[in-house]
């Protein structure tokens, strides 16, 4: 060993040792070390996969696909017309598979609401009996190229956004957003909820369909998202700018295809009255993007992260359809008047597909307004995004954050990096009341549990 002329030190562990470096003006980096996750055997596997050329190549490919995906809104259709499995008495839900008896309050509430909406049940009692008797086939949205926010309930008559990945040809679907407060996706099922769903089926869906079909090539969704990120949205929990940008395109189309001025006004009022209208189309776009890596051999990049209010589930590109699940955490956040943390349902919804496609919590720096959910500062928002950069493959080429010098958003959540750094991905989410029938009570933040990442690595095989 030859002693270097000037030493430069990476400090790994105790902060107290950097005093000496400060006093002697020695260059140093104080690595924010956290214990890696897993027993020695798992860590050995982690190191092996990290240095595997096959894994590296597969992850590079996954990163390229996530970047090159071009989600385009091509149609709005009734779910049963685009998803053949969604037949009579079939209901899709968010997250990994879950049986009726294990469903959380809001998912049960939304499922019962859907039974009434579809006319399978007269009232809530009947709906409950029907579900409990096993007359309804439940299946995760994710098993059918679909996603749904919160409860994620999708039934045959509902209209869905049809988004196509122009680069890879795959399609994905998501319901239309009903608005905030008492809505089906947060587990509410009162008459007004059902009435609104009916209106969406009779009026909103068909007219959106007409409008989208009037475009030549559809509406490019990632372009809207990219713009919205520069306007203060992260397009998961804040969609104000994106909804405005989307509406800008829709208004023109409505004027082209609809003669009835009052109808246009009705449509525009509904859309502009809901700052989250864009969320669902964005989620469908994220799903087409994420599906481009599903089943990609040897890749350790996460292709699905979703919650059903009971469990959170992951799917890894390289392990195909296999779910890795853990108990869903409870988000901490801000609550509407009259509600408290006590009322919060565990983490819920497919909307974390946003993070898998490099927006949402990973793009928090773009939307400092919403770190207030956990009493954070604008500085924290930047910290979250930088932190997520350390557990993802690389920066996004399309989604950029101006206040980070146009750094691309963290893209390609890698289980190896999660376990290596001990940093769990960060989720921002709406919060449903834990009981059925009440609806949204707040919004907040949490981190995904480590155990499902460990299980995923345990299962992964390099071929």
């Amino acid at each position: 060993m030859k002693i270097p002329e000037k030493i430069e030190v990476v400090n790994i562990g105790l902060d107290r040792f950097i005093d000496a470096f400060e006093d002697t003006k020695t260059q140093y980096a104080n690595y924010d070390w956290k214990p890696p996750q897993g027993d020695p055997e798992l860590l050995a596997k982690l190191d092996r996969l990290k240095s595997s050329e096959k894994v590296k190549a597969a992850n590079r490919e996954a990163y390229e696909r996530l970047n090159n995906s071009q989600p385009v809104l091509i149609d709005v259709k009734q779910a049963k017309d685009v998803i053949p499995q969604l037949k009579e008495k079939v209901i899709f839900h968010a997250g990994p598979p879950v049986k009726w008896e294990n469903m959380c309050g809001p998912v049960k509430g939304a499922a019962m609401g859907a039974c009434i909406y579809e006319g399978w049940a007269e009232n809530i009692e009947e709906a409950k009996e029907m579900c409990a008797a096993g007359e309804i086939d439940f299946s995760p949205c994710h098993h059918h190229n679909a996603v749904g926010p919160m409860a994620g309930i999708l039934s045959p008559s509902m209209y869905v956004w049809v988004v196509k990945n122009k680069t890879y040809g795959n399609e994905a679907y998501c319901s239309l957003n009903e608005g905030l407060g008492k809505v089906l996706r947060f587990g509410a099922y009162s008459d007004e909820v059902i009435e609104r769903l009916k209106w969406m089926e009779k009026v909103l869906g068909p007219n959106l369909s007409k409008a989208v079909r009037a475009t030549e090539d559809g509406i490019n969704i990632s372009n809207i998202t990219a713009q919205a990120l520069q306007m203060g949205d992260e397009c998961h929990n804040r969609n104000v700018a994106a909804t405005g940008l989307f509406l800008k395109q829709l208004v023109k189309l409505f004027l082209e295809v609809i003669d009835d001025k009052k109808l246009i006004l009705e449509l525009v009022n509904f859309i502009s009255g809901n700052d989250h209208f864009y969320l669902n189309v964005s989620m469908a776009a994220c799903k087409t993007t994420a599906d481009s890596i599903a089943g990609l051999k040897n890749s350790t990049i996460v292709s699905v992260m979703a919650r059903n209010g009971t469990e959170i589930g992951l799917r890894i590109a390289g392990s195909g359809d296999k779910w890795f699940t853990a108990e869903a955490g409870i988000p901490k956040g801000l609550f509407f008047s009259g509600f408290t943390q006590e009322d919060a349902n565990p983490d819920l919804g497919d909307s974390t597909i946003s993070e898998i496609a490099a927006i949402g919590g990973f793009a928090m720096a773009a939307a400092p307004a919403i770190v207030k959910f956990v009493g954070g500062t604008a500085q924290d928002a930047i910290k979250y995004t930088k932190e997520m950069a350390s557990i993802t493959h690389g920066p996004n080429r399309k989604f950029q954050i101006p206040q980070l010098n146009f750094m691309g958003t963290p893209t390609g959540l890698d289980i190896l990096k999660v376990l290596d750094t001990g940093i769990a991905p960060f989720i921002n989410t709406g919060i449903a009341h834990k009981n059925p029938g009440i609806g949204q009570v707040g919004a907040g933040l949490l981190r995904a549990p480590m155990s499902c990442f460990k299980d995923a690595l345990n299962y992964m095989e390099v071929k």
Partner: protein
Amino acid sequence: MGIKKNIINKDNNNDSVFLMEIAGNLEKSDGISSASLMMGTEANKDILIQANLLTEEGEKAKENDLIIAIAADSEKILKDSIQKIEHSFENAGSEKQEEGDFKPPTFEAALKTLKNPNFALISVAGEYAAREAGRALDNGLNVMIFSDNVSLEDEIKLKKKANSRDLILMGPDCGTAIIGGVPLGFANMVSVGNIGIVAASGSGLQEVTVTIDKEGAGITHAIGTGGRDLSLDVGGITMSTGITTLEEDPSTEVMVLLSKPPHPDVAKKLIQKAKKINKPVVICFLGSKGFKSEGNITFTSSLEGAGIAAAQLSKGEKISLPEFTVDNIDAMLEKDLNNLLGDNSGNNAGDNKYIRGLYAGGTLCDESIDIMKGSGISPYSNAGVPEKMKLKDSNKSFENSMVDMGEDEFTKGRPHPMIDLSLRNKRIEAEAKDDETAVILFDLVLGYGANPDPAKDMTDTLNKVKDKKILVASVCGTDSDPQNYSDQVAQLEKCGVTVLPTNAQATRYACKVIEEIKAR
């Protein structure tokens, strides 16, 4: 009965999350049963209705109007809360923003922040240390593992790996190193000079570097090897690399090799290697006896001896190792004995006859045991003594006792005594209550990593016991240390402690006290 009020701020558009935070804070204050700030959209009004907060006034709000809805116990509280809301709006953004303190979250990111990273200092929990060390070596960094609890197998593997990459691995359980004047881990700020050190002992290395500094010499590099390096299993891999490194280092003119009692085969091998070197080498392997010179090698048996000999060699002086480097020893002794025994020796038979040593530095404790044995006193201890001299209970002294309080039994679940002195303070008080105790002997280790003002943390304890027993100490540190040597010594002396320049001298002094008591 409470009152409910809606106030509308016309055309006052605000971010909903910002508003929720204000409302949330308001709801925490006394006398407010509920509060909500929302823009007057239809959806928001529904939420207010659900919360039973919407009034006729609120109904009139338009979507760009802010509704402040409050249910309070009294008009007064309501008025106050509106003021609070105004205050929240005015003070938004004034909360302290944490600036800059970005710690790289990954090893790779940490590397990228440096121009030419060449060392990693690892102090994570032992079970993770080997993995971090392996990664640092793979990235071309020399490594110091401060952490303990690294397996022997990992240690050997890592040391071989370091050698194959022409790097050095210091540790595991390496407490101290100084490379190019930069203190790593628990180290003192000592003068730069021409003496290079390789040491299999943390506090030993500190004592030797500090002694060299006191003698007016200085060091080039001090390489730590970790406590197990000179075991038969490891075979002195790092010390051997260290010798070669210092041999090739042009600024190193004198070399010191230092170890707790090594395995004889390993010691022999390293001595052979040192003999072939074209520089004077001072070797202090504790447990060996006496002072001797052979060719380029000088053997010493104490840390102090190693430090002084190296300093003298470095200045081209003849080696001479005095018993004390202060000249008023007899006067000090007289004063201490008078304080303890009184003018007319009211000493009860059987009282005041033992040394109780309470140490933070493990090798300092070892050095003291060696010196005491040389003076015909065989102390019991919890470390580094043959089985028959082991203390049955580390928490209870027996006859002459030397306790290394840095050993596992004292540090499980609490910081090392160089950082947290509370356990040792308690022990000092306990020893002071024991009639058989004559001298309480201790060390105070300064430097980076150590307690920022250890003497101050001892003041209360020392003042309680100073009239009961003779307190003898040495302070391992320099005036350039963050704690300042002179200041620490002055604080101890103010509490009646007799402070000697080195641990060896403090120990010799303690032995003299015992001899004198016996003689009287």
